């Protein structure tokens, strides 16, 4: 479904398939919505594609012992830049635009804690 994409993006979309409704702070399963609808929309709208990949990269980065902000921030920046361009242009706003805003917001809810997580991990010695 996404074999035409660059290898990094393909990998991140695969990572995303293993994320679940809890990562999205949903209280009940939403497999179809998160793994089918969201991805279908992402494959035809770059701001959403980069937002989803940012979230997957962040998730993966948390699991890697040497995870770095750079691992996911580049996708975040790309998504935000493309989204702003899309919002400011005269293009009709679509479901994909709305999903991008929600996906970025979901990442942002988690991300501000990255620094404090890093701090907690180093100072409290909290194991993975």
């Amino acid at each position: 479904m996404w074999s035409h994409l660059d290898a990094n993006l393909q990998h991140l979309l695969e990572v995303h398939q293993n994320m679940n409704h809890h990562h999205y702070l949903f209280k009940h399963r939403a497999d179809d919505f998160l793994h089918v609808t969201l991805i279908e929309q992402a494959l035809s709208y770059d701001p959403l594609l980069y937002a989803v990949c940012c979230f997957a990269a962040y998730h993966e980065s948390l699991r890697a012992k040497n995870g770095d902000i750079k691992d996911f921030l580049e996708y975040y920046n790309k998504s935000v830049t493309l989204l702003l361009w899309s919002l400011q242009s005269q293009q009709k706003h679509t479901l994909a635009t709305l999903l991008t805003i929600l996906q970025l917001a979901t990442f942002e809810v988690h991300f501000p804690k990255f620094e404090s997580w890093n701090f907690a991990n180093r100072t409290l010695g909290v194991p993975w």
Partner: protein
Amino acid sequence: MLGHQKAAHGILTELYSPASIVETEKRRKLLWWYSRFDLSASLLSNNAPTLGNDWYIAVHEYYREQSKRCPEDIDLQIETMQSKHKLIALDMAILFAKWANKQFGIPEFMHENQQLSEAIARAKTELDPLITNPEYLMYSFENVTPLAPDNAANPYVPGKVFIGPLWPMNFYILDIIGLELMHKYQLASVLQQQQPPELTVLALEICRIFEAIEDWPHGPPGAILSAQASLAIAALFLPKDEKHTMWCKRKFASVESKG
């Protein structure tokens, strides 16, 4: 997201209405996702949510109708309860926003608050037997690790942990208690009363459920992420001693590592 909230609201209301948002599961999930941010922004800022309760009533009514048609469907019953919780949370956000923006005086506030209190109480106690089936409640726990002295919460209370198809009910109960806690706290603030000791009791109950969710070996990965908002609220009302403070820090670190 707050920076783009206006754009998001504009797109949502342009594409859908309360009548059309219920038509597919995709749209219902979309509303759920949007509402999570709309409600938390409203509760944090004391401004009214951007969507009116007609959207939430529509979704709740949809699930309620479906549940009536399929009374043995656990998932539908859970969706009915969760959409009810959202509706009550929205009504609470609207009520306190009106108060904060001086849109009415104490008598009117108390009248609307009474209805809200009753709704929260019913949401806690009026549960369909299908979703409180003892077959899916843990009564005995095997191979338990003895609780360490610095553990502020006991996850092994019999009859309180939902398992199997009722697993999402743990989050529902967590949400309702979180709502009750916020409500009682806000009410005390409005009436300029001291915080009732009950707030600590509710906060400790949230900790118990959080610990149970984290401890349960068969839960999906990242389960505690869905519990973090309730934990954040509870943390404000826990005893201010080292045991509880350190317990909280450990739990927050644990949540952040799962992001």
